[in-house]
């Protein structure tokens, strides 16, 4: 938040904008993106979140080399590390050490570090792509509702209400539970991931939809849209050339904030046992196994921390982004 004058509200007369405009020449003429970037650069915490996000993406993208450097293949068994009777890792702290950085899993002795690194890939992939699905559906629905208004808006509003009233998690579980294992030319993990992306994305669009609708409503009343309309521009032209470009900033901001929500959604589904099929590692899936082995701190903590750090980083970055684009929306 960089609004210069915010004196617990009492100096509201000295409005931030007047100062910004007055501070004048330096800032005038710069695009909203540039201003946002300037604000963001000053927000150390958000930048920290952003750096972690970038690191996580790098980890996910380069998971294979990282694993081959520091760990073992995530599916490889190391039952020599396991006590045959209790099925728990023989070593202290879950077998943590140079060989297995974060210890090994009970029963089969798979390397926890490698599985967490490999899990990053799934979490981020689903988080990102599901968000894209939500953004596409949400933007189309929001723009259509906001731009055309009237009964179209009414119907879309009702649909959003239905989604809000849905016990979504229960529903998603039911849906994933009865889904077939082949289809759309995909099978196995590929189909499963595609399905999770679609289901999570499909259930998360109303939040974006509402925001886009609101923004479109206000954009529709602006002069430049009026001007374009009075010049006889077609709906398509106005939507794509006038409305959508102006929606990019809010969409970007709320998409960033939706990613962590979707990552949590995926983790919850995996936790409840309806995520990706084993043995492909996911953080939620690891946590659900940890329930049975709750006495092993390394097995409970590391996947949980992985989720926490990822979600927190996205939240920090998204919050900063939002403040940068619209300080008063906070």
């Amino acid at each position: 938040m960089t609004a210069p004058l915010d004196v617990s509200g009492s100096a509201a007369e000295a409005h931030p904008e007047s100062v910004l405009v007055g501070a004048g020449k330096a800032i005038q003429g710069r695009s909203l993106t540039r201003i946002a970037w300037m604000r963001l650069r000053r927000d150390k915490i958000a930048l920290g979140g952003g750096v972690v996000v970038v690191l996580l993406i790098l980890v996910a993208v380069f998971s294979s080399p990282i694993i081959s450097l520091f760990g073992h293949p995530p599916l490889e068994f190391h039952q020599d590390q396991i006590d045959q009777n209790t099925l728990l890792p023989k070593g202290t702290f879950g077998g943590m050490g140079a060989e297995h950085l974060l210890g090994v899993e009970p029963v089969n002795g798979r390397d926890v570090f490698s599985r967490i690194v490999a899990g990053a890939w799934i979490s981020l992939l689903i988080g990102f792509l599901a968000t894209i699905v939500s953004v596409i559906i949400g933007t189309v629905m929001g723009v259509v509702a906001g731009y055309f208004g009237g009964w179209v808006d009414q119907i879309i509003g009702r649909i959003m209400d239905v989604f809000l009233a849905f016990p979504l998690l229960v529903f998603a579980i039911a849906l994933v539970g009865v889904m077939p294992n082949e289809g759309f030319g995909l099978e196995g993990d590929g189909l499963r991931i595609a399905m999770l992306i679609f289901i999570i994305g499909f259930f998360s669009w109303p939040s974006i939809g509402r925001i886009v609708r609101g923004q479109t409503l206000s954009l529709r009343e602006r002069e430049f849209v009026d001007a374009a309309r009075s010049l006889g521009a077609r709906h398509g032209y106005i939507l794509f050339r006038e409305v959508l470009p102006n929606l990019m900033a809010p969409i970007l901001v709320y998409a960033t904030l939706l990613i962590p929500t979707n990552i949590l959604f995926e983790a919850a589904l995996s936790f409840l046992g309806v995520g990706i099929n084993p043995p492909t590692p996911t953080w939620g899936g690891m946590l659900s196994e940890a329930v049975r082995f709750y006495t092993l701190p390394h097995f409970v903590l590391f996947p949980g921390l992985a989720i926490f750090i990822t979600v927190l980083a996205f939240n920090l970055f998204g919050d900063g982004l939002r403040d940068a684009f619209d300080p008063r929306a906070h």
Partner: protein
Amino acid sequence: MVTYIIRRLIGAVAMLIVISMVTFGIFFVVPQWAGATPEALASRYVGRAATPETVALIAERLGFNDPVVVQYGRFVKGLVAGAEYDYGAGVEQCPAPCFGYSFISGQPVWPDLVDRMPVTFSLAIGAAILWVLAGISVGVLSALRRGSFFDRLSMGTALAGVSLPIFFTGMISLVVFSYGLGWTPPGGAWTDFTVNPAQWAYNLLLPWITLAFLFAATYARLTRAGMLETMGEDYIRTARAKGLRENQVVVRHGLRAALTPLLTLFGIDFGLLIGGAVLTETTYTLPGLGQFAILAIRNQDLPQVMGVVLVAAGFVVVASLVVDLLYAVVDPRVRLS
């Protein structure tokens, strides 16, 4: 006002119909795409080593041989007019609203749901009280001391709070406080309020706090944002200019306006929660509606799934209606028409 309520109720019923159709579709149409026959569906619900004759009998009895539309119609009829259940030695009436009989237990669904409501209600109400109190007070204090150490600390904690999945915090809390320190009861502990209120509260303490922490984080963030916005409003300046004491300015003029938009959110959150706190109940193995829903889905017990989904959706619908009515009371600018 009355017409508004009636209109909203009609809308709510329409919404529930849509939800019930979609649920029904998921459980009947999707498996049929996958090639399930009535016998295959029926064989889910019989004991092991059932003969083909048994399976055919069960398929007939559960009505799987009828078209989906007829099956759905029967479900709706049961809801509206009640249904009859042949228990062998006689026929039992299941009065409306009859959500049918569980395929697995053969018991009517509704009493089972009613049975589990107190658990979820207790969980939701207790947690709601905690998170509203904690979230709002922290949010208000943060807003008033903006930029202070308290503000940074509490907002940092809140952001961490919204980033922690409840099945992780729940598990950690159980491991530490129940299995480690032995301060709190283990997962699954539940005592009815009417049996022993102290034990009831003691058993729910950990789930309450964990669940409340998650929501309190969100509410603290929103309260703070709302407070900051409100305290910058012109009417707050007016109130100060009148010579009103600062605490009265905050409470009478600031808080009321800042919290009103939270009412809607609270309605939906609370409505969703009393329909089943799936993750919390799973983590703490509490025998509430959320756990019921998960078990029903695992067992593919359609009448139970339909029952719990509709009840849950019904709660949200009712909660949002109540909230909208309350909103009109709180904010005189809102007209119900």
